[in-house]
């Protein structure tokens, strides 16, 4: 164990001094024009060999987290891995590539036949999902650098009312839908652009990113892991996958003694309480409600898809080509604005407005289909989330909620059962 710890800490140091970094892709700054080099939003490219070292590290961290959470029942082991992930995937790898963002690569690969997803990105997407199917959200527990930095800074977590928590739980699905739509249409990788913690890991970045990061960390002192719980789009997928996990972390090793200490330990309110008589619903009215929701879900999906299709115009305005085309149509006088770099670049390209509009229209057509699907998806999520509130599952012990539990192991520390 001691050696394992030493190796875990030495590995990032060794890699940091490795000269296997790929060549810098961006040209040196030039001084004879007024062009300002933009701040790179991604770290320098990595050699192919090193990419697979990252995958290997992820695999090892996921395996060890699963082992610590399920077999070893060691919060300290998971904590150690959390620190390691923050250092390796965060500070050393600058948070890129991360599994959270890889959702967008996968979405783009599905939508654009010209885009070939790298095996590296694909494995970063698939490995956490596979592990969550078997062992729960072990990726969130210790491997995710975004979760790690928040987890390490939890100070005095407050209790959020269940209804509010469940309502806010809709946001990750909305964010996921929008991220997939924007990635699939080639608009932008919004998860990466608005990633609050990358700026902190890189100690550099746009101000919005840094401020967002600081805001989330300050919030995280009192609301444990706010990004993971109420924003993370990858978490939304893992939540679903984890519900089917066969060997999820168990709060107690043998039998729950109903001491309730785990409820105090978990800052994420991810412990399900045993049922009491007074919480059991009236079966008749519940059945009626269930049938009502079953009927309501298709209606919500249809309404969502219709509203989604109506919304494609404003959603598509985020695409740079659509934005530019509309700007040139709505404000043709801006053509003479030498400070508008977008318009000047377009004019310098020699492309005609007709061509630009035609290209923008193709993109908008894609948005029509995408927004239609997004609306239906959101309608489905609203319906299922509401319906989930009337589904009664019998519980006799305090158990980790498979969907919401991050497998951080705090409850293991508290459980007095040997």
């Amino acid at each position, binding site marked *: 164990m001691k050696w394992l710890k030493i190796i875990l800490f030495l590995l990032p140091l060794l890699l940091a001094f490795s000269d296997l970094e790929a060549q810098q892709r961006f040209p040196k700054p030039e001084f*004879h*024009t007024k062009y300002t080099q933009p701040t790179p939003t991604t770290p320098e490219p990595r050699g192919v060999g090193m990419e697979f070292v990252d995958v290997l590290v992820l695999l090892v961290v996921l395996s060890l987290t699963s082992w610590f959470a399920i077999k070893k029942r060691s919060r300290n082991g998971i904590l150690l891995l959390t620190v390691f992930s923050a250092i390796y995937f965060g500070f050393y790898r600058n948070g890129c590539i991360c599994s959270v963002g890889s959702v967008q690569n996968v979405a783009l690969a599905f939508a654009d036949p010209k885009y070939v997803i790298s095996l590296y990105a694909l494995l970063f997407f698939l490995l956490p999902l596979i592990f969550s199917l078997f062992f729960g959200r072990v990726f969130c527990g210790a491997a995710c650098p975004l979760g790690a930095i928040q987890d*390490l*800074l*939890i*100070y005095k977590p407050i*209790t959020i*009312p*269940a*209804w*509010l928590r*469940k*309502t806010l739980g*809709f946001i990750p699905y909305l964010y996921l839908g929008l991220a997939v739509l924007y990635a699939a249409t080639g608009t932008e990788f919004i998860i990466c652009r608005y990633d609050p913690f990358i700026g902190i890991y890189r*100690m550099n970045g746009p101000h919005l990113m840094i401020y967002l990061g600081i805001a989330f960390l300050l919030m995280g002192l009192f609301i444990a892991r706010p990004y993971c719980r109420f924003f993370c789009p990858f978490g939304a997928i893992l939540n679903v996958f984890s519900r089917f996990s066969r060997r999820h972390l168990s709060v107690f090793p043998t039998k729950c003694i109903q001491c*309730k*200490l785990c*409820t*105090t330990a978990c800052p994420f309110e991810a412990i*399900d*309480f*045993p049922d*009491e008589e*007074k*919480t059991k*619903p009236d079966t008749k009215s519940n059945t009626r409600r269930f049938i009502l929701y079953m009927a309501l879900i298709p209606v919500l999906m249809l*309404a969502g898809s219709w*509203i989604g299709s*109506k*919304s494609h*115009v404003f959603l598509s*305005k985020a695409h740079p080509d*659509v934005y530019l*085309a*509309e700007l*040139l*149509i*709505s404000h*043709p*006088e801006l053509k*003479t604005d*030498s400070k508008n770099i977008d318009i*000047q670049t377009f*004019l*310098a390209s*020699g*492309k*005609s*407005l007709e061509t630009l*509009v035609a290209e923008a229209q193709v993109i908008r057509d894609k948005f029509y289909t995408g927004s239609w699907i997004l*609306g239906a998806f*959101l*309608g489905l*999520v*609203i319906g299922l*989330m*509401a319906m989930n*509130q*009337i589904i009664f599952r019998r519980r006799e012990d305090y158990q980790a909620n498979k969907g919401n539990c991050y497998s951080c192991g705090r409850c293991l520390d*508290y459980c007095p059962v040997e």
Partner: protein
Amino acid sequence: MQDTQDNIKLFGNLITVSGIFCLAVALLLLINYWHIRQTKPLETEALKSLVQQFQADPESEALKKDIRSLDLLARKAFFTSQWQIKAGALLLLFGAIAFATCLRIYHTMKARILEPLIDGVDSKVTRMLSQRWILITGGLLLGSALVVSFLTTDYLKIYEETGTVVQAPAEPAVKVAVVDKDEKTGRQKTEDGGQEDGKTVVGDAGALVIPAKAGTSPLSSAGVLVTPAKAGAPSLNTDFRNNHPSFRGPWGQGISYHTGIPVDWDGPTEKNIKWKVALTKKGNNSPVIWSDKLFIAGADNESEVVYCFNRLDGKLLWEQDAKDIPGSPAVPPKVTADTGLSAPSVTTDGQQVYAIFATGDILALDMEGKRIWAKSLGVPDNHYGHSSSLICWKDKVIIQFDTNKGGRLLALNSLTGEISWDTPRKAKISWSSPIMAEIDGKLQIITTSSPTVAGYDFDSGAQLWAIDCLSGEVGPSAAFADGLVYAANEYARLAAIKPGPTPVIVWESDEYLPEAASLAVSNGLLFIATSYGMFACYDSKTGKKQWEKEYGQGFYGSPMIAEGKVYVMDRSGAMHIFKVDRTLTSLGDPILGEKSVVTPAFADGAIYLKGEKSLFGIETIRQQKK
């Protein structure tokens, strides 16, 4: 137990201290950032002021010293700030790590003495509340999306339905001028006047504005719709025939309609040289003439200039720089010396003159040299330098923009510079110029490139026909006569093409092929000038060679037909004049006295030539003048 309490207290205090430390560092970082943003040490007004003073007095050593000192100070301030940011970020990081570590220890110790929660919160009420709020939130989201969708303007749809762009309502077309069609020039003539219903007017931005008519369009109430002008019917009009509006004359066909052209001059002795002016900038472009004005262009690494001379006395009337063009490269592209930065000839329609340079900068000037519009098409990727000349007609300026990155044929609106159409071409890079011809009642633009010779509709830019028959680096432009298009290139072939939906090569030859000089056709005869000094005449209908003559110098300038004669100048500056005839009849070989690679321009009784150093105005001067 007491020890544990003490430790909890200790780590609680450590958390407070490290937390305050982090906040203090974060605050200092923010102050530093705000300060740098406010002061901008690298862009101080004091430094700018000193630089301005220095520009006025470049010899002042004191100013130089002050600038250096201030610059050093500014840089020190900037880099100190950068250092502070980096140090601050590291301190913040270490502070955060200390904070996180203390937190962890604090919680670990405190956990042992925590009391468990008494009651759960998962009740029927919570479930009901959750359902309600989920449905309310979802409903609000979908409702908001619906409202926003109805409030959003679909500009793409407006554009597609009306073909218009919308001008900002705050800036209506204030200054308007009535546009009438000038029957002579075939383009719109403007004069100041008020806006009248139903008439096309020109806004001060140069865009054509159609006045609002109620019910004509969803935007008509604003009265700010802008539509492109429509081109009229093709026919080479008198004004174009009476001038030399582009490279190789009207429509670039290699034919001049002037008479009384001199056949005898001598540059060294100034025989019949009416005037001669030294060129200040290099430019392998050919002169262009409208009325008494003669236009050429020149460029070097410093600037790109259009010159206007009085063709009667050679006096420079004006010159205008192509500067401050958005998108123009800071450094000109690398070009070879024999092409240069200003190889394309300018073109004029009698109201404006248009010029393009190897930088991809294109500009329109009025006849007094005032800039009307200018834009950058982007630097053409061309290893020798862009050399395709412009041609204009009615409301369009045509640009053949074949580069290593692909071929395009563009038409710019001559009034605004906006792209009227932009047709991608299946063409490799070329150096030839477009010509225009009326084929089957339709005005076409004919281009040559590798491998395609093609015809495009003047109004829409649509490719009407194309045939692959050339190869290599195509420089010679096409010629057109009697329903046949002629195209040739060195190491490829000379082909006479019957254009149409299925173009056919009527005849072809590969005996003499030009490298740079374009073809000229007149009176059933086709003339070819090669870069190795061979000048040949073919029957334009059958391809049968009529005669040939070899010179020691090759030809880069193109042959021009005028008054039943063919003029072609070799690279030494010797003009070879022949009768357009099936038998070789030389009419003279006057010399310029300096090398030349350009094509002559004509006016009644005069020929204008450009050598590598000078511009010449040549007229037959009567004896008494001597």
